[in-house]
C-alpha cells in the first residue's frame, strides 16, 4: 500500500544543511504493522512527515513516496488534502498538545467526520460515540463532552487514535504514541494499533524508540540510523537475533526486568550534512574495518535468511546476541550502617489556591536509606514519585511527619545553615538540558554547590576539574553553554554538579527517561559507578522497572502516595507480594524472558478516584478485590524479607494458580 523508494531529504537553511534521510526505502502492506525504530535524530519523524506531505521548510527531496501508486511528494494541494484525510493519518506523540484545548473531544471528532465523511451532525455524533467505544473509552457518551484537559494521558491518546482512525484511513502512522505513558497503558494503547491492523485491514507504521514495546505488536521492523535504513525484516528475527551491529547495540542498551546486564556503546549518532559515503555507524562499531569507512555498505539480504530480511553492513553478525547472566551485584561495604536519610510518616498536601481542600500527594511514607545503599522507587505516574523527590530536597514541606537528612531536619533550619544542609542532598533531574541554566556555562553550573559551601574560586576550580575528570568529561566543555551539549553530555554535567559538593544523599529522578537508548546505557553505567560509593546513599526514582532492577539494593513501590510494597530488589522483582507490584511487572515490556511468574492485569487506567475512599486505594482496579479491601485500611506487614500492604498476600498464590488472570 505504502512504498517509499530511495527517499532522500536534505534540509537546506541559511547557515546549515542537514541530510535528514538518505536513500530510505520501506514498504507497509494492508493489515501489517511495521515498526520504525532508532534513536532520535535518526530520521523517524521525517519519514512520517514525508508520508503525509508535511516536510519542513527548506527541504529538498528526491525519490518517491508512493501511496497506492500516487507519489505524495508530487501531489497537488487538493489531492494532498484528500490523501491526508482518507489515505494516511497521524497520531502524534503528545496527544494533549495535538488536541485543541477549547473544544470538546467529541466535537473535534464529529467535525472531522462531517468534513471528510460528509455525515450529518446527528450521524457524526453517533459515529463518534461508536469510535470512542471502539478504542476502549469507558462511558463514551459522557466522554464526548469532555475537554482535553479533563482526560488522563491514556484517555487523551485513545481520543487521538479515534481521531486518526475516524475517517477510515488506509494507513495509520503513530509517532511515538506511548512516550510518557505508564507501562500498564503502553501495552493497552499498542494493542489498539494491532487491533486496527487486524480487524480493519489498515496498514500501521509505528514509530518508536522503545524496542521492547514494539517487539510485541509489529510484523516487521525497520531500523533507522543517521537517516539510513540499517536493517529491516520480520520483527521476531530483527529483534531476536539482529545482524547489524547497530541493532545489536540498541538491544543491548535496553535494561530489562529479567535483570540482564546492559552493555553501553560509546559515542553518539553523527549529524550528517550530506548523504554518507561510508557506514555512518563505523566510528562506533567494534567490527568496523577499512572497508566500512571507505564505502557505504549496500543494502543486501542477510546471508541464509528469509527473503525480506535485509541489512546494510559489510560484516553481518550471525552469532547469538550475547545473553549474559544477570550481572553479579557488586560487593558493597555497608558495614558502617550509617543512616543518611530517614523519612517518618511523611504526608504532603498540595493546597488548592482558592478555597479549601487540596490534593494529598503523599500519605504516610516512611523510609530509610543507609550510606552505600541505593533505594529504588517505582510506580505509575501520579503515584507520588516526584513529590517524594521534592520532599527529600526540601522543595515542598511535609504537612505531617519528619524528613531527616544526615541527622538534621530541613524544616528546623534557616538561612546559611539550611543552605549548607541543602548541599548534602543533590538531585539529578529528568531533563538534563532544562536543569542547566541556559545562560550559565557548564563550569559555572558544576561549581554551584561549591559556591554555597563558601569555597574560594581557586578551590572551586580544583574541585570542578576533579569531578569533571572523574566523569570523563572533556575539560574544554567547562566554558560551553548547555545548548551546545548533547543530552548525554548534559546529563553527565548534571551528575558532575550533583557530585561536586560531595553530598551524603543523591536523588535521581528519572535520570535517563529523556535520553536516547544508547546514551541511556552510557549514563546508567556512570550512575552505577557513582552509587557504588560507600560514603553516600542514593534514591533512584523511575517508572521503568527494568532500570531500577539494574542497581537498586532495595525497592519501594508507590501507589497513590502510599508504599504498597517494600523489600530487597531480588525479592520484590522475583516474588512480588502485592497485586499492584505483580501487575507492574507483568506489563513491563521485555525483549528477554521478562517477568516469569503468573501475570496480573489491572482493570481501568490510573485515576485518583480511589485515593480518598476508605480501604485499599487499589480496590477499584484490583482483580482480587474483596469486600474487606474496600472497607479496611491496609498497612505494610512483613512477608518474608519484604513488606506489603495487602491482607490477601497469603492467599494470592492460590488465587493465581491455574488461571493466568487477565481482564
Amino acid at each position, binding site marked *: 500500500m505504502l512504498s517509499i523508494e530511495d527517499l532522500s531529504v536534505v534540509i537546506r537553511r541559511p547557515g546549515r544543511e542537514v541530510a535528514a534521510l538518505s536513500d530510505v526505502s520501506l514498504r507497509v502492506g494492508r493489515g501489517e504493522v511495521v515498526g520504525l525504530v532508532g534513536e532520535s535524530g535518526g530520521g523517524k519523524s521525517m519519514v512520517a512527515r514525508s508520508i503525509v506531505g508535511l516536510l519542513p521548510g527548506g527541504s*529538498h527531496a528526491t525519490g518517491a513516496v508512493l501511496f497506492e501508486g500516487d507519489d505524495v511528494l508530487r501531489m497537488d494541494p487538493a489531492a494532498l488534502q484528500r490523501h491526508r484525510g482518507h489515505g494516511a493519518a497521524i497520531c502524534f506523540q503528545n496527544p494533549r498538545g495535538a488536541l485543541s484545548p477549547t473544544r470538546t473531544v467529541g466535537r473535534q471528532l464529529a467535525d472531522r467526520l462531517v468534513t471528510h465523511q460528509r455525515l450529518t451532525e446527528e450521524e457524526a455524533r453517533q459515529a463518534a460515540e461508536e469510535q470512542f467505544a471502539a478504542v476502549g473509552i469507558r462511558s463514551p457518551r459522557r466522554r464526548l463532552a469532555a475537554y482535553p484537559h479533563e482526560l488522563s494521558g491514556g484517555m487523551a491518546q485513545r481520543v487521538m487514535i479515534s481521531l486518526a482512525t475516524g475517517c477510515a484511513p488506509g494507513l495509520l502512522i503513530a509517532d511515538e504514541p506511548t512516550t510518557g505513558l505508564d507501562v500498564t497503558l503502553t501495552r493497552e494503547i499498542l494493542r489498539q494499533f494491532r487491533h486496527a491492523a487486524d480487524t480493519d485491514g489498515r496498514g500501521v507504521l509505528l514509530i518508536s524508540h522503545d524496542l521492547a514495546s514494539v517487539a510485541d505488536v509489529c510484523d516487521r521492523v525497520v531500523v533507522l540510523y543517521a537517516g539510513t535504513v540499517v536493517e529491516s525484516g520480520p520483527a521476531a528475527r530483527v529483534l531476536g537475533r539482529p545482524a547489524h551491529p547497530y541493532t545489536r547495540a540498541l538491544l543491548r542498551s535496553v535494561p530489562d526486568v529479567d535483570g540482564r546486564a546492559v552493555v553501553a556503546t560509546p559515542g553518539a549518532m553523527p549529524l550528517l550534512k550530506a548523504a554518507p559515503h561510508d557506514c555512518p555507524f563505523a566510528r562506533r562499531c567494534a567490527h568496523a574495518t577499512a572497508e566500512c569507512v571507505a564505502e557505504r555498505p549496500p543494502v543486501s539480504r542477510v546471508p541464509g535468511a528469509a527473503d525480506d530480511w535485509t541489512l546494510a553492513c559489510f560484516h553481518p553478525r550471525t552469532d547469538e546476541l550475547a545473553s549474559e547472566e544477570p550481572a553479579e551485584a557488586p560487593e558493597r561495604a555497608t558495614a558502617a550502617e550509617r543512616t543518611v536519610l530517614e523519612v517518618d510518616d511523611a504526608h504532603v498536601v498540595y493546597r488548592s489556591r482558592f478555597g479549601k481542600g487540596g490534593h494529598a500527594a503523599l500519605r504516610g511514607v516512611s523510609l530509610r536509606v543507609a550510606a552505600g545503599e541505593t533505594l529504588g522507587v517505582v510506580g505509575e505516574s501520579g503515584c507520588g514519585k516526584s513529590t517524594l523527590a521534592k520532599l527529600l530536597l526540601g522543595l515542598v514541606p511535609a504537612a505531617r511527619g519528619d524528613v531527616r537528612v544526615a541527622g538534621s531536619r530541613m524544616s528546623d533550619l534557616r538561612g546559611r545553615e539550611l543552605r549548607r544542609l541543602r*548541599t548534602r542532598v543533590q538531585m539529578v533531574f529528568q531533563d538534563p538540558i532544562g536543569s542547566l541554566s541556559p545562560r550559565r556555562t557548564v563550569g559555572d553550573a558544576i561549581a*554551584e554547590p561549591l559556591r554555597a559551601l563558601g569555597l574560594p574560586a581557586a578551590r572551586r576550580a580544583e574541585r570542578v576539574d576533579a569531578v569533571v575528570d572523574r566523569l570523563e568529561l572533556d575539560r574544554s566543555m567547562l566554558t560551553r553553554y548547555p545548548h551546545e551539549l548533547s543530552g548525554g553530555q548534559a546529563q553527565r554535567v548534571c551528575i558532575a554538579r550533583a557530585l561536586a559538593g560531595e553530598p551524603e544523599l543523591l536523588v535521581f529522578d528519572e535520570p535517563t527517561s529523556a535520553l536516547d537508548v544508547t546514551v541511556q546505557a552510557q549514563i546508567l553505567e556512570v550512575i552505577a559507578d557513582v552509587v557504588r560509593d560507600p560514603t553516600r546513599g542514593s534514591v533512584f526514582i523511575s517508572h521503568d522497572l527494568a532500570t531500577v532492577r539494574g542497581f537498586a539494593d532495595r525497592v519501594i513501590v508507590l501507589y497513590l502516595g502510599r508504599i504498597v510494597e517494600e523489600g530487597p530488589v531480588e525479592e520484590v522483582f522475583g516474588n512480588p507480594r502485592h497485586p499492584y507490584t505483580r501487575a507492574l511487572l507483568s506489563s513491563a515490556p521485555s525483549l528477554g524472558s521478562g517477568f516469569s511468574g503468573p501475570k496480573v492485569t489491572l482493570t481501568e487506567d490510573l485515576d485518583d478516584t480511589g485515593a480518598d475512599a476508605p480501604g485499599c486505594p487499589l480496590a477499584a482496579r484490583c482483580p482480587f478485590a474483596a469486600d474487606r479491601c474496600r472497607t479496611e485500611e491496609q498497612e505494610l506487614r512483613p512477608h518474608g524479607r519484604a513488606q506489603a500492604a495487602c491482607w490477601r498476600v497469603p492467599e494470592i498464590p492460590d488465587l493465581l494458580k491455574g488461571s493466568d488472570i487477565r481482564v
Partner: protein
Amino acid sequence: MSETVVVDGARAGRFAKVLIVTGSVILAVVALAAILAPLLTGWGPTEIDPLGTLVPPGPGHPLGTDANGMDVWSRLLHAGRLDLGIAVAGVAVAVVAGTTLGLVAGYLGGWVDDVLMRVVDVFQAFPTFILALAVAALVGNGTGNLIAVIAAVNAPAYARLVRAEVRTVRESAFVAASVTSGASTLGVLWRHVLPNSLTPVRVIAPLNAGWAMLTLAGLSFLGLGVTVPAAEWGAMISLGSPDVVAGRWWTSVPPGLVLLICVLGFSLLGEGLQERAEAKRR
C-alpha cells in the same frame, strides 16, 4: 522520478539581520551628528543671527533661521543630544526599575506580588501620555525630571513583562537545581532567574525608546518639556508650527522628519531583535 522536490520556507534569520543593521545605522548616524554638532554647524543652537529671523534656507543658514533668528540646522543637530539622551536614559532607568520590581514580585509571589502589581495597575490605568503630562506638571521641567517622567510611565510595563517571565523561569528545573545546591535567594535571582528573564525586555526596550522620543516631543510641544530656548525637536515643531501656514516650512518640517527617522530606526532595531529571538526559538 529522481527530480528534486523543494519545499519553500526558512527565510529564518537573514531578514532580522537586515532590520537590525538598518536600524542601528540610522540611529548611529543621528547620534554621531548630534555628538559632532559643533563641528558640523556654523552657529550655536541658541545663538541669534542679528541679521534676520525666518531667513529661508541658503548659504550661511543651510536650513534657514526660525522666528527668533536661530539657525535651524544647528538646532536640529544639537537637539539630538537632548532627545536621544533623555529617551535612552529614561528607558534605561525604566528597564532597571521595572525589572527589579518584576523580579521581586514574580519570584517572591504572595502578598509582595499582590501589592506591587496593584501599584503597577494604577499606573497602567492611565493613558501613557496623560500620565506623562501629569507627572511632568507635578515635577516641573528640566532634563533630570524629564528622564524621571519617561522612566515613571514606562517602568510598569517592564515590571509586568519581567514578572510574567520570572513566573515561568522560577518553575524551571535549573532554578530548582540551584536552590537545592544551596544557593541563596539573591544568588538564584541574580545568577539564574534574571539572565533568563530578559529576552522580552531586550526586544521591547528599543521600540520603547522610539515611543519615549514621541512622548518627549509631545510634552515639549505642549510646553511641558525642555525649557524654551534649548534645542529640542518637539519644541522646534511647536515654535515653527504657525510658520507652516505662511509657507515657511523649514522651521518645523525638518525636526519632524528627523523625529520620524529616529523612531523608525528604533522600531526597525526592535523589530529585528524580535525576529531574531523568534528565529532562535524555532
